[in-house]
């Protein structure tokens, strides 16, 4: 078949000149670049509107050029020629710092403003007690029948978190009623700093292959966090904020930088690059302040990030929407991750090859193509009209978005599970493992990075969705942070939509909306870069 066709093609082959081929090639390249360049231009426009770099003094630009841009180019250029791997590490450290700073902002909103630290602490203690009990139970795994163990675990969690009203106080209640309660920053240091210390300690212990070094690293992380809280107020920084930033951003970034250098000595110059950028930025900031140069009149500023909607574009802010997006994401992740991974595990590891399985298969790929606005109708019809939930709450918003991204989570999790080598499963079954044992001990640990990457990308999709939230009746304007699952919720893209449609005016178009777009895109960029870094790391390991 091929030869006959090919010979007919051959008639025309000679006539096409080299130039035509070249033109074609560049046409293709231009077509490829069209969308990318258009978007890039639009992004430049919106960033310009939001940040307004030209409103800054020339001196401001010059100062930062001298302290930040020039040294970065010099050091970066030198490293690029000599040690590209080190430059990559340096870039990663700076990137990690930026992303984790953004992340610490989110953590601060959740653990300081949404959940009062004392409440969070009391539940953390309750959870810790329950988890400790569960761990103790697993020690006697072989003696206690499985059903009894599940029941006991459930009871343990219920009693420690909720107690028995009237008879027996729950642990959160006991903690909250304790005669002496620690102040907020101590609580944050203990919970967040403690968690970070634990993770950092384990990471360092692994790379140094030395338990003592791990303990030392963990302990110094904790001390550093506490120190920040004590010193902070003296230099005019809120103790709680400093604890969160130290525990979520500074310490993990430092541990990452240190750990990478320990494993690969030759990457040390990369830290010089990172230091150049960070010190340059700080020195620049101090210098413009001292010299009295005015910065740009950015609309994406601290005021915008920390205040709520206002009738005037200058005073409008995104704060409740940021908090709403965070709570929505937590709800979506909590719902879609277990359900999506569960479905993927069923389809890959359990499902017999029959009609029903094939039906589920086709069904999932069709669900992935259902327009998001129809999911919004589903949320409106099922949760609001039939189940009688209030409109526009965190819970139904999260549930609707979770249903929306579920097919994506399932499809990417299936791919990750499928990439686990069959050898591993055979080895496990050959040892007499049951399906669940094989799934838990072999399949899920191996597939986890891939599953996580897919889930983060799907969450990125959910965080940008607006239509389903409008459908379930999320309000256009929310003045307070949502504090419970039943609170009315706004979200970043919804707020942007409200500003660009309901409050449509030149003022909002040029100030509040671009500022909101920049924040939304920054969050998305951070999430996607985490996913991409995870994916690259995972791919290079296997």
């Amino acid at each position, binding site marked *: 078949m091929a030869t006959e066709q090919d010979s007919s093609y051959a008639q025309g082959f000679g006539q096409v000149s080299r130039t035509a081929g070249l033109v074609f090639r560049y046409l293709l390249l231009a077509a490829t670049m069209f969308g990318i360049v258009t978007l890039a231009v639009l992004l430049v426009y919106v960033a310009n509107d939001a940040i307004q770099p030209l409103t800054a003094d020339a001196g401001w630009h010059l100062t930062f050029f001298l302290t930040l841009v020039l040294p970065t180019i010099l050091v970066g250029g030198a490293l690029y020629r000599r040690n590209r791997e080190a430059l990559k590490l340096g870039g990663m450290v700076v990137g990690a710092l930026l992303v984790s700073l953004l992340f610490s902002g989110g953590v601060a909103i959740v653990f300081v403003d949404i959940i009062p630290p004392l409440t969070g602490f009391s539940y953390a203690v309750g959870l810790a007690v329950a988890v400790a009990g569960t761990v103790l139970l697993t020690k006697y*795994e*072989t003696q206690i029948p499985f059903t009894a163990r599940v029941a006991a675990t459930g009871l343990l969690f219920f009693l420690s978190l909720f107690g028995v009203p009237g008879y027996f106080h729950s642990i959160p209640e006991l903690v909250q009623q304790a005669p002496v309660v620690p102040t907020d920053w101590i609580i944050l240091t203990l919970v967040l700093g403690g968690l970070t210390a634990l993770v950092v300690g384990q990471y360092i212990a692994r790379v140094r292959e030395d338990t003592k070094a791990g303990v030392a690293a963990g302990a110094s992380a904790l001390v550093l966090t506490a120190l920040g809280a004590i010193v902070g107020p003296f230099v005019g920084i809120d103790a709680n904020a400093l604890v969160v930033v130290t525990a979520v951003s500074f310490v993990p970034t430092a541990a990452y930088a240190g750990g990478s250098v320990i494993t690969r000595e030759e990457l040390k110059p990369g830290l010089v690059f990172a230091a150049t950028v960070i010190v340059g930025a700080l020195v620049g900031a101090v210098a413009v302040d001292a010299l009295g140069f005015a910065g740009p009149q950015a609309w994406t500023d601290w005021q915008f990030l920390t205040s709520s909607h206002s009738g005037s574009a200058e005073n409008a802010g995104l704060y409740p929407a940021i908090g709403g997006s965070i709570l929505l994401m937590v709800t979506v992740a909590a719902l879609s991750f277990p359900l999506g991974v569960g479905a993927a595990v069923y389809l890959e590891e359990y499902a*017999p*090859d029959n009609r029903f399985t094939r039906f589920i298969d086709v069904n999932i790929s069709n669900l992935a193509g259902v327009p998001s606005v129809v999911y919004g109708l589903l949320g409106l019809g099922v949760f609001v009209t039939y189940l009688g939930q209030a409109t526009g709450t965190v819970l139904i918003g999260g549930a609707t978005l979770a249903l929306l991204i579920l097919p994506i989570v399932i499809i990417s999790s299936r791919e990750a599970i499928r990439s686990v*080598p069959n*050898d*591993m*499963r*055979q*080895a*496990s*079954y*050959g*040892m*007499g*493992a*049951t399906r669940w*044992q094989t799934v838990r*001990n*072999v399949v899920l*640990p*191996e597939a986890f990075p891939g599953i996580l990457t897919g889930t983060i990308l799907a969450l990125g999709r959910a965080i940008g969705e607006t239509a389903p939230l409008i459908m379930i009746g999320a309000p256009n304007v929310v003045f307070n942070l949502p504090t419970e699952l039943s609170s009315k919720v706004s979200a970043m893209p919804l707020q942007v939509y409200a500003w660009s449609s309901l409050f449509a005016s030149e003022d909002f178009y040029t100030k509040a909306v671009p500022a909101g777009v920049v924040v939304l895109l920054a969050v998305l960029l951070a999430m996607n870069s985490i996913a991409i870094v995870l994916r690259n790391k995972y791919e290079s390991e296997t």
Partner: protein
Amino acid sequence: MTGTNDPTNDEMLVETDVSDGLSAAESSVTDDAETVIESKDINVWYGDDHALTDISMEIPENSVTAMIGPSGCGKSTFLRCINRMNDLIDVARVEGDLTLRGKNVYDDDVDPVALRRRVGMVFQKPNPFPKSIYDNVVYGLKIQGIDGDYDQIVEDSLKRAALWDEVKDRLHESGLDLSGGQQQRLCIARAIATDPEVLLMDEPASALDPVATSQIEDLVEELAEDYTVVIVTHNMQQAARISDKTAVFLTGGELVEFDDTQKIFENPESQRVEDYITGKFG
């Protein structure tokens, strides 16, 4: 024996290998040794493909039984029938009786998971889990809920798999950091840690270099003192060296001959087996 096993096959590098092997593994199995596994008219289909036809044999206790034959003859398929690994393949269908100490493992009430806990398996390609050496060895103990002094069991198993001296200082490093031969011995240690009755080995040395291969062979002979070992190999001298009994499978999934190894290699009944062994085909 001269003449009958003239080494024309590439795999038969040295003629004396075969006879040396036979004298070393001088049949320790007497006729009254108890039968552990007995198969009666086992047939296997993969979809429409008839992979095994009417396989019947008796595998005696504490011995090494080798299965040889050209590739695609069904020897691995038969091995996977013994611990019902074929159950994991959707299109596979098994008919016939296969008994483990008198209990038909294809009875409806038999749990393949429980069966596999008694019948350990080592695969063709070393497949340690991406966990530490220690965790690899205790994997079976953990999933089977076996209590005991894990440190001691790990040490014993690794010693029996002739790996202890090489890894005793790095038990908590990943099993994937070991060499191919070490990985395969780790897989053997993992399989014997739970003390199964039968050990199935599917061409355990085919992916290894000659030194590692001979280490595995020595190990198999030692293991036969305590376990019933069934080993699939495409290497005829290997079968001759280490096995007590040999089953010859030929194309079409037939068991052509099953007898004492010495008999198979020196004086086979079937002309086809003789042709195969002397390298005339296969």
